[in-house]
């Protein structure tokens, strides 16, 4: 399920030109993070992937399907979208029914739905909470319910909108595990995030946006190397990248493993 975006322009009804010519491809199975300050157009861009927004000019193709030719409900079979605030999604009596909502809408039969729900709950550590009312859970666990609700839809592409905002370290770890599990299943994962450390540690490709355009697009280490351009998006580089730079490392590092490897190299050199 490839994503192709061709010269995408989008202007809101009120007149704001939010996207000014975006062209990029995301092959199936890739993990991409989109960074940039608020107003850069990140959310506007990903809303085109499931048809919530349609291009003013240009094309968006999901697995060859033009988003203009299919309803959002239809595209939901290919693209799952986890919104930022779980309280804007949760409404069911219990967690089990909430998570079943998505797959049921997609037309799976009850056996399949059950199996998908169980799988999603296991991935999000919610297996024991099927009968609990989502609003009886803490915000931390409500977030996981929202994640499970979309995972259960078993879409080849999953979009996360600011998954780590307001989460504590343990939940961020859980979310990182979920993303890794999705990667192992060959899913395409696209994330919008302000948390550059989370981005650097979990994503192979980074797209930096500003004012409706793509400024940088490439492998994480390469993008992180371009600090002057990154600075224009008001995104601070990850902690370890900064440290590596100050210590004069030859290569840009993006996580602890790479940092330690570089450190060791400097010893042996």
């Amino acid at each position: 399920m490839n994503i192709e975006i061709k010269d995408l322009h989008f202007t809101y009804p009120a007149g704001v030109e939010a996207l000014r010519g975006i062209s990029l491809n995301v092959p199936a199975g890739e993990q991409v993070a989109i960074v940039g300050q608020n107003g850069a157009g990140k959310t506007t861009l990903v809303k085109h992937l499931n048809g919530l927004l349609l291009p003013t000019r240009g094309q968006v193709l999901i697995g060859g399907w033009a988003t203009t030719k299919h309803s959002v409900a239809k595209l939901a079979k290919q693209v799952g979208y986890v919104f930022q605030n779980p309280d804007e999604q949760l409404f069911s009596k219990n967690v089990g029914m909430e998570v079943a909502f998505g797959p049921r809408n997609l037309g799976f039969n009850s056996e399949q739905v059950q199996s998908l729900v169980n799988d999603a709950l296991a991935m999000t550590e919610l297996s024991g909470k099927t009968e609990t009312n989502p609003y009886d859970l803490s915000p931390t666990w409500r977030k996981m319910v929202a994640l499970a609700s979309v995972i259960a839809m078993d879409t080849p592409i999953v979009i996360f909108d600011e998954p780590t905002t307001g989460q504590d370290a343990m939940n961020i770890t859980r979310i990182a595990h979920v993303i890794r599990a999705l990667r192992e299943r060959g899913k395409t994962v696209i994330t919008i995030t302000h948390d550059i450390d989370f981005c650097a540690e979990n994503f192979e490709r980074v797209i930096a946006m500003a004012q409706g355009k793509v400024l940088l697009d490439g492998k994480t280490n390469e993008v992180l190397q371009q600090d002057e351009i990154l600075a224009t998006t008001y995104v601070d580089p990850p902690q370890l990248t900064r440290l590596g730079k100050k210590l004069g490392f030859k290569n840009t590092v993006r996580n602890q493993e790479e940092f330690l490897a570089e450190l060791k190299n400097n010893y042996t050199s």
Partner: protein
Amino acid sequence: MHERLSFFVKRDSPIHRLNPMTKVVLALSLVLIAFSSPWYWTPQAIFLLAIIPLTFIARVVKEYWSFFLKVILPTVSFLFVMQALFLPGESRIIFEIFGLEVTELSAQLAFRNATRIAVMVSSFTILLLTTHPSELMSDLTRRGLPGQFAYVIIASLQIIPQMQAKAQTIISAQRSRGLDTQSSFFRRVGAIVPLVGPLVFGSLVEVEERAIAIEARGFTSTRAKTSFHEIPDPSSERVIRWLLIFLVIISLALKLWLS
């Protein structure tokens, strides 16, 4: 974001400059006189001789007439037709349709009642067009309206439109989970719970925080409140208000006396 606040239109006019209480008393007086006066032509007279001139003096002609054509006229026309067809009373039949009769009496009463409603809605429309909600509530609070009451009204004016944005997000989120909002009627009825549910529950979650936030700013303080805006209340206006009240009393008295 477009900052059109409910009805209020910012302009400089003699009406705008009046103290909010004076405008409230004026609106109420026009309504009470229109409803109570024994003279048949009162509502019509008020409409022609008070309401219409007021829209010019207050310089809100365009806004008022736009609202009139879109809301007031259709509503009172509908009321007129309904009343004309269904009000009982023995008199000459002037019109008949599908077995329903319009008599002279019913037509007269319908016309009077419809005009009364038009006067009522128009008075308050002019009030709202010329008075900033904040000022209105401040003034009423100063005169004894409970602070919480005023708060609920004002906050609703601002927070409800903001909640519309939230509702949009909820709709997007549920559509992204395959909720079909465009097909048959029954499917759409079934879509109500997933759309309204989060709006209600989510808002309840936020209500507590909101209550704490205003509490933290002394909202329930028992001290005497002060007001940032000075709202002048010249004695001339006080006289006008008493005059209006006097007219209302006369109107009511006449009605009682003549009935």
